């Protein structure tokens, strides 16, 4: 419980500071709003948790987001109905994920290189479709999709996140598939020698990653009402920070989704608090960068703390 406990304390601290700083913080309106503004990042963070636990990484998520958004805009502009276009974009996400999975599981290239290449490649494909333009062609119902409250004050996008969250928790903590994800992260060889279908698990994870990234792209377009080639640029920073801060080891095999939930809240509240204090977006990004680096030191800090404890309490 150690790390999650620490995160809880930090979270409460941030909530206190934020509430103190601005009365608007705790209002329902602000809370809903701050989640809506980042829903794309947090749904990707869920699948990224699986991927990093699996000792892999997907750097192409934000670019797939952009690609899906561009494809959406391009298709709607060319006359496709919006609903059909949405379906096709989700398929694009699956295909993109499968593409990544191919190079990783069959050609056996490191996921770092593959997804770094696709970070460039997917973004590029998006630019091929809509070049430098910004497209604003969506029907009003689409633009309201993200904003309009459906269940109480919660709009569709938040509901989607909550559903995905529950699914993620159940799968990771309670199912056999989730356990396979952990084992592969601990040691791919042990998993293989124990009869686990490693390639299948990885393929599923990367395809889902593509799918969720595409979904995020669609939600982002709905929220903004338009698409551009550079949407989501740099999102992977926040996403990976959320996962690592949550206690997931970059080397795989260790960490839990509960920690990631807490760290998602921490990152979102931190950003919100900074916004309410009129800190610019750029400084916020810098702060997140620092947090990312500190998060990666967590295993070291943990073992350092443990060694101090052991020395103190050894017989």
């Amino acid at each position, binding site marked *: 419980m150690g790390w999650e406990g620490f995160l809880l304390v930090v979270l409460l601290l941030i909530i206190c500071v934020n509430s103190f700083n601005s009365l608007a913080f705790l209002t329902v309106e602000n809370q809903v709003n701050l989640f809506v503004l980042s829903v794309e990042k947090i749904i990707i963070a869920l699948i990224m948790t699986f991927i990093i636990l699996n000792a892999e990484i997907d750097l192409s998520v934000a670019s797939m987001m952009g690609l899906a958004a561009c494809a959406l805009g391009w298709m709607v502009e060319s006359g496709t109905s919006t609903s059909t276009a949405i379906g096709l974009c989700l398929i694009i996400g699956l295909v993109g994920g499968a593409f990544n999975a191919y190079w990783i599981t069959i050609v056996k290239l490191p996921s770092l290189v593959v997804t770094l290449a*696709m970070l460039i490649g997917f973004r590029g494909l998006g*630019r091929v479709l809509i070049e430098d333009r910004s497209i604003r062609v969506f029907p009003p119902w689409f633009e309201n999709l993200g904003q309009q409250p459906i269940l109480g004050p919660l709009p569709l996008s938040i509901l989607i996140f909550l559903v995905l969250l529950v699914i993620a928790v159940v799968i990771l903590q309670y199912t056999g598939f989730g356990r396979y994800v952990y084992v592969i992260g601990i040691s791919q060889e042990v998993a293989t020698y124990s009869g686990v279908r490693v390639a299948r698990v990885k393929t599923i994870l990367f395809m889902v990653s593509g799918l969720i990234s595409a979904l995020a792209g669609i939600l982002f377009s709905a929220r903004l009402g338009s698409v551009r080639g550079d949407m989501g640029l740099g999102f992977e920073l926040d996403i990976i920070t959320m996962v690592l801060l949550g206690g997931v080891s970059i080397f795989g095999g260790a960490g839990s989704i509960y920690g990631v939930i807490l760290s998602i809240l921490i990152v979102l509240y931190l950003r919100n608090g900074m916004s309410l204090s009129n800190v610019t977006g750029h400084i916020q990004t810098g702060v997140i960068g620092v947090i990312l680096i500190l998060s990666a030191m967590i295993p070291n800090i943990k073992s350092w703390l443990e060694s101090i404890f052991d020395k103190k309490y050894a017989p």
Partner: protein
Amino acid sequence: MVKYLSQVRPEKQRELVLLLLILLVVIFFAMMIPNYLNARLFNRVSTSVAIMAVLAIGQTLVVLTRNIDLSVGSIVGFTAYFVGQQLSHNNEIEPMVAVLMAIGVGALMGGFNGILVAYCRVPAIIVTLGTMALFRTLLVEYSDAQTVLTVNLPQWLLDFPRLNVLSHGRLHLRFVVVIMLAVVVLFQLFLRFSSFGRKLYAIGSNPEAANNAGFPTQRIVLISFLLCGALAGLTGFLFLARFGNITVVAGIGFELKSVAAVVVGGVNIFGGSGSILGATLGAILIDLLENSLIRWLQISEFWRDALLGLLILTSVATDSIFMKRIRLYWAKRHAPSTS
């Protein structure tokens, strides 16, 4: 042919393949584009390659130790802006000082990365992902969203990109290109002939063995990041000279291109093997392709990134498959005698 190939080291083989590819690309485009092969092509490509090549060399040093530096783009942007600003306020600064300033600032930023990676044991991918953001933020804050304008810069700086060392008709050997060549030669020799350079390879090849052998691994990794930052700073200076106007988005995406050049150039992403020459040829190939594709009207410039991504994948895949086969074959030929 096979006998010859078997005598040549894998790294050299890669360099030869790259030279061949560059030749093929030139021939191909010469056939497709009228008036392609002329002095202007050489001048333009050589100047733009100079910038990316210097950066790629820095990235090579880091990748050889089994690390990566994704913050180089931000370092380039920051140093370009910083030096540009200093020169704008004070046109009297000596050229040499300006260059050293760029290198120094870059080295400092690289050193920051190096300390976190080498001494705090944070994986390089994470550190540099973080500093990529951090340094960019630094740039934005420092610049206060002001642009460095050409009008304020000293004339020598603006003339710099056109400064020639040699000319033959319209074919110019620019000073910037000479700088690049100097860096290439310096580091190629450094890595081949200095014991420090050899240790760089050793650390990437087998980090555990390197520690067991008592190498000052941490110090070496720190220095590799320092040098990478320094070269990124130099790149920043060249960038400033070339473009004059520096905004807060200067250098975005450079890290990816430097990794692409390194990977295409045959440097193993896991470290331990590859050469400066290879990385330079990789940078040349990529830049050549980009410059040529734009002029080949059938391909819009927007395909550039998509193709670049594909190029990286195929080079690493080819490396992985072919080089393994070639190395195995090579190793078998030199197997110890068994009776």
